[in-house]
């Protein structure tokens, strides 16, 4: 019995160690290679820590368009998430609290949006963007970003709003509060925990979004971070340490946020997954 238990412990330990290596080694490779010069990267083993650590790669990134792309990503994500939450919260309020004839078919239609692959919309959205003169503008990204995150957000927010006690609403109505005021002064503030979780959930996805940026943005100074990473890699494909430095820096913001808000991020992801 003792031997079996010990064997199990060893197996568990071995399994976790192996997975830790598999998961961690690429990060180790990425993080430390950025400090190597191009020559040193080729000259010494990929395992070896840099003998002459240099910040040159990072310095040239900072001088380049890194902060511009970073800022672009920030703007697009903040605007999109803001619009997603407002639009979805309004719709969810209607679905959760009002009864009308087409309520449930409309709700089902919105939820059906969860299984629409974005690729079906790429060509029409691209053509539309050109026609209305928004091609190569950050504004072009907001429409598709919002539209494709509405279904999951409406779905989860509607369920959240259903958990808000109806008595509060009744009391407000007794006091002569109309539906608009009810939404903005009672339902919206009470939905804050749900909104916060969904904000993070949507932001993580949008921060890493690539395909719409790839087809709607063409110039480096308008690029979001994932697009900038790809452009940079195409341009400096032989300077591997510089690219790895960029990968490190571009992944850092989310990793730092994760370290601070681990619970919320995992909770958001789990909910999005189980219901999506």
């Amino acid at each position, binding site marked *: 019995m003792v031997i079996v238990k010990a064997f199990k412990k060893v197996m568990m330990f071995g399994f*976790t160690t192996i*997975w*830790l290596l*598999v*998961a961690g080694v690429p990060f180790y*490779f990425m993080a430390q290679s950025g400090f190597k010069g191009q020559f040193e*990267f080729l000259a010494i*083993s*990929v*395992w070896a820590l840099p003998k002459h650590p240099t910040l040159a790669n990072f310095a040239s990134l900072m001088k380049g368009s890194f902060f511009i792309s970073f800022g672009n990503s920030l703007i697009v994500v903040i605007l999109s998430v803001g619009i997603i939450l*407002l*639009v979805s919260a*309004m*719709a969810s309020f*209607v679905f959760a609290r009002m*009864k009308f004839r087409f309520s449930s078919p*409309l709700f089902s239609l*919105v939820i059906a*949006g*969860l*299984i*629409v*692959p*974005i*690729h*079906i*919309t*790429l*060509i*029409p959205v*691209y053509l*539309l963007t050109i026609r209305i003169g928004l091609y190569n503008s950050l504004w072009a990204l907001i*429409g598709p970003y919002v*539209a*494709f995150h*509405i279904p999951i957000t409406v779905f989860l927010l509607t369920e*959240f709003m259903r*958990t808000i006690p109806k008595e509060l609403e*009744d009391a407000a109505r*007794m006091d*002569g509060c*109309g*539906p*608009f005021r009810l*939404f903005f002064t009672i339902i919206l503030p009470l939905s804050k925990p749900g909104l916060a979780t969904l904000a993070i959930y949507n932001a993580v996805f949008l921060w*890493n979004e*690539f*395909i719409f940026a790839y087809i709607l943005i063409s110039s480096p100074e308008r690029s979001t971070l*994932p697009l900038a*990473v*790809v452009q940079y890699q195409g341009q400096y494909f032989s300077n*591997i340490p510089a*690219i*790895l430095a960029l*990968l490190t820096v571009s*992944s850092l913001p989310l990793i730092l946020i*994760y370290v601070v808000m681990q619970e919320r991020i995992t909770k958001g*992801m*789990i909910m999005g997954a189980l*219901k999506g």
Partner: protein
Amino acid sequence: MGVEMVERARVGKAPKRGTAYQREYSLCAVVFLLPMIFFLVVFVVWPILSSAQMSLFAWNGVSPTRQYVGFQNWSRLIGDRIFWSAFRNNLTVLVLSIVIQIPMGMALAVLVSNGGRWMVVFKTVCFLPMLMSSVAIGILFKYVYDPYFGVLTASLKAVGLSPLVRNWLGDPQIALYSVIAVVCWQFIPFYMILFEAGIAGIPVELHEAAIIDGATENQYFWHITLPLLWGTTRAAVSLALFGSLTYFDLVWVMTTGGPSGATELMATYMVKKAFLSTEVGYGSTVAFAMFLIVVLISGIAFFVTRRKESSPWSS
């Protein structure tokens, strides 16, 4: 009147017709739904219809006129070897994703749930891939897989397995599997977190009761944990399903579908046709075929796995 109104609201009925409150109520419903409808119609519904229409035309995307060709694009698609091999590749990704990621994720979740406090560190490291963009992961693994100075090659050489070294992404025989390995690397932690939450939702009393009744840990897993995780598993399967059929970013930056179509997926083929070779009409056909396939397969999965249960916010 006020009391009656509140009562009607409480039981979920629309307020009586004709009252001022009723007008405000209907106005509110319309005003609050319109923005959502606007976004969904302009960026989802209309594009789907427009793609269906464009799939009947031959058009390079630039010239002012497009030529109606009826179902020519569609008959071309039926005989398009590349599209069907892309579809097969999607299915390979799908099957291997489900077969590898979900059991691995579950195994890791069981480990993490049984492990002590140091598992927090393990969890955090494991979660890192979820925070990187797929394109960043793709570029990183291009260098991990590099046959000359990549980490994988170096690792194999270090443990004396240099005969196993391959041109991971350059060899059509194995490129798809190399890509799938990265997909697994990226998503196993996600399923781990998912299953861990599922396990955390199982009451501790069940475990105690089972052990007191003489069940072994193994029996407990197979007879209690696994059945109770069935809901989570189904959600995980439908997610993996949809993800595998629409996969794009990572493959695009790693191989762009190459070498010689070995890693071509429906999505990469569609983007190539529409945006690189400017066959917008045929690109729309490919996109619409992909749409039908994805909606059909994941629609079936979605409705088969749908279940009624408590609010996701209650946990």
